[in-house]
């Protein structure tokens, strides 16, 4: 007779493996974060000398200085606006596209999905300058300011996350049984209302996962932000580089600023986690 424990309880070997591996991974994930935190609490001279685990003296001046050395509040706001708008718009567009791909058969579907996938391979360098030129000419021709404006950046970022978003959402939508759609259609809904009434609620966790992905893509992008923004519209990702000036690299302020701007993002993650994991039932499996 096997030892009396629950049928599904893992054996000690598994539990120990789990403990060791997860601890190692936690250390790997957290040590740099700790270095960030401790460096943000040191005066500049201490940061550049021998590394010490505990800051002494401990100072919070970096947290005050970060707002003055660089217009951090403005960069933060810009990043927030651009990333949120890009994420929302990207998901909105992707939802419709994914609905079409997962619910309809139509000519050119194969081409569309392949083309969408292929954009993941485009090296950013290749089309950074041409895209910039196109924005400038649209601006010249129509008066809509795309270059140097948040709008242009939003359009760029939303398109960057679009392929993956469509891909993933198609998977999630396909896992929503078509019977649900058809029931709604029987009740007299048009396809759009079926989308909103049935499919979206059922695939909500997937939608949230994709929104997070789109947001993070926009939040961290550096190359296009550096070319396409001016001082008013600059985002955080490139703005942090301004702590490295002609004379000095303000390491402690860079760390403090990074922590400050990450707090809302991590908080958002925490809140979203529930939706992210709980209901991603058979999400990407198909």
């Amino acid at each position, binding site marked *: 007779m096997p030892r009396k424990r629950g049928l599904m309880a893992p054996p000690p070997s598994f539990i120990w493996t789990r403990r060791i591996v997860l601890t190692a991974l936690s250390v790997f994930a957290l040590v740099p974060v700790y270095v960030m935190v401790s460096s943000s609490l040191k005066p*500049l*001279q201490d940061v*550049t*000398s021998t590394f010490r685990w505990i800051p002494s003296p401990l100072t919070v001046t970096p947290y005050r200085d970060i707002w*003055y*050395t*660089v*217009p951090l509040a403005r960069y933060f706001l810009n990043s927030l606006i651009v990333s949120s708008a890009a994420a929302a718009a990207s998901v909105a567009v992707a939802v419709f596209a994914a609905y079409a791909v997962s619910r309809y058969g139509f*000519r*050119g579907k194969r081409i569309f999905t392949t083309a969408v996938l292929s954009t993941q391979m485009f090296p950013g360098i290749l089309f950074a*300058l041409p895209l*910039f*030129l*196109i924005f*400038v*000419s*649209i*601006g*010249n*021709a129509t008066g809509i300011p795309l*270059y140097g404006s948040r709008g242009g950046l939003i359009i760029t970022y939303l398109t960057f996350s679009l392929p993956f978003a469509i891909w993933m959402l198609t998977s999630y939508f396909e896992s929503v049984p078509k019977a649900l759609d058809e029931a709604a259609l029987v009740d007299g809904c048009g396809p759009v209302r079926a989308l909103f009434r049935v499919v979206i609620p059922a695939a909500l966790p997937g939608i949230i996962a994709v929104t997070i992905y789109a947001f993070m893509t926009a939040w961290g992008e550096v190359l296009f932000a*550096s*070319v396409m923004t*001016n*001082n008013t519209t600059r985002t955080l990702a*490139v703005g942090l*580089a*301004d702590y*490295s*000036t*002609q*004379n*000095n*690299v*303000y390491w402690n302020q860079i760390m403090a600023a990074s922590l400050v701007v990450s707090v809302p993002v991590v908080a958002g993650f925490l809140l979203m986690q529930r939706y992210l994991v709980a209901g991603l039932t058979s999400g990407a499996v198909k």
Partner: protein
Amino acid sequence: MRIIRVSAVAAAATAVLALAACGGGTSTGSGGGNTTSTTLTYWASNQGASLQTDYSVLNPELAKFKQQTGITVKLQVVGWADLLNRILAATTSGQGPDVVNIGNTWSASLQATGAFLPFSSSNFSQVGGESKFLTSAVGSTGAAGQPPAAVPLYSLAYGLYYNKALFTAAGITSPPATWDQLVADGKKVTHGGTYGLAVEGASIPENIHNVFVLAKQKGASFFDSAGNPTFTTPGDVAAVQQWVNFMGSDHIVNPGDAQYAQNQSLSDFAKGKAAMLLWQAAGTTLKADGMAPGAYGVAPVPVESGIPSASNPDSMVAGINVAVFKDSKNHAAALKFVNFMTSQSEQIKINGEYGSIPPVKSALSNSAFSTAEETVLRNVLSTSAVALPQVPKESQFETAVGTAVKNLFADAASGKPVSAATVKAQLSSAQQQMQG
């Protein structure tokens, strides 16, 4: 399918529009007409401790300019990480500022793009004429034989900073004047964790600036008179080898310096971990790192032998130039602004704030530039500084050779010998990259 066709047409239209509208801006030629209620856009480079410092230094001067001429200047301070990219974007699209600061070593490259207004004699006369400026500074404003693409705004030169206490402790009474003396002094100071000299081994500009001057001291140059790269001449090879061997065979440089590219060498100097430093106007940074001005001295950079002079240089001409975009719609106003920024009073004020040296002769003698540090640098700039090559491929040269030196420092740091052959091999491959 109809919808796809419609969108294809829209896409084609966009493409045609882009093709037609982009490339070459809408140049309105010189002369901007009415300047009384004009607005200029000015991109300034970061010269101060932070971007905000630059705004607080420059905005009062811009207000002064408006008072005098009625022209409003909209200021944007651009960090160095972005400045060249933004200038590139402005050049390509024709949409950019009216006036911009550039690193003076970029002058010849940017000149070749045709983006800047050339300072022909008539334009030059609107800002005071060529004789208003230091000859060495003007030498770094564009290719020889062509009108300059920019005029000097702030200037700097390299000096040898040395730690007085460490020198006294090692029995060194005066700073070295030749390289041999520098190595000897360095060896006297090097023991334990203290080293003779601190260098930024992974910094492309620092490597280039130093090896170029070393080569010039040996009578060699990295380019011939026609502007072709000649990286493998004996003088060039010897210069690079000498520079890297401060770490490699002389052992007066900490091997860790091979990774430095973020001004860590200044921090080491400030903390007394290195006794000497070759830098441009390090005073402000050293103070921020906790070193009092009395703790260090400044001397001219050593030479091979003899006295520094124009033909025996001990520094490159460092500095910032100011240029006017050809696509600007306000050439006259822009030139007025340049004239203002290079006027004696402004030069004294702004260079005083930034700790740089005015390239305008009439401002040089002002007492603001008579501190010990500034006097040395001023003299170097006026008498023994040489401009980096004024060729269109200058930035390519910096990247290619700078990276070669960086790689050699990496070898030296890990104990590999740096011989003339290895140096020549690296320089040769750097030169081949220039043909691309």
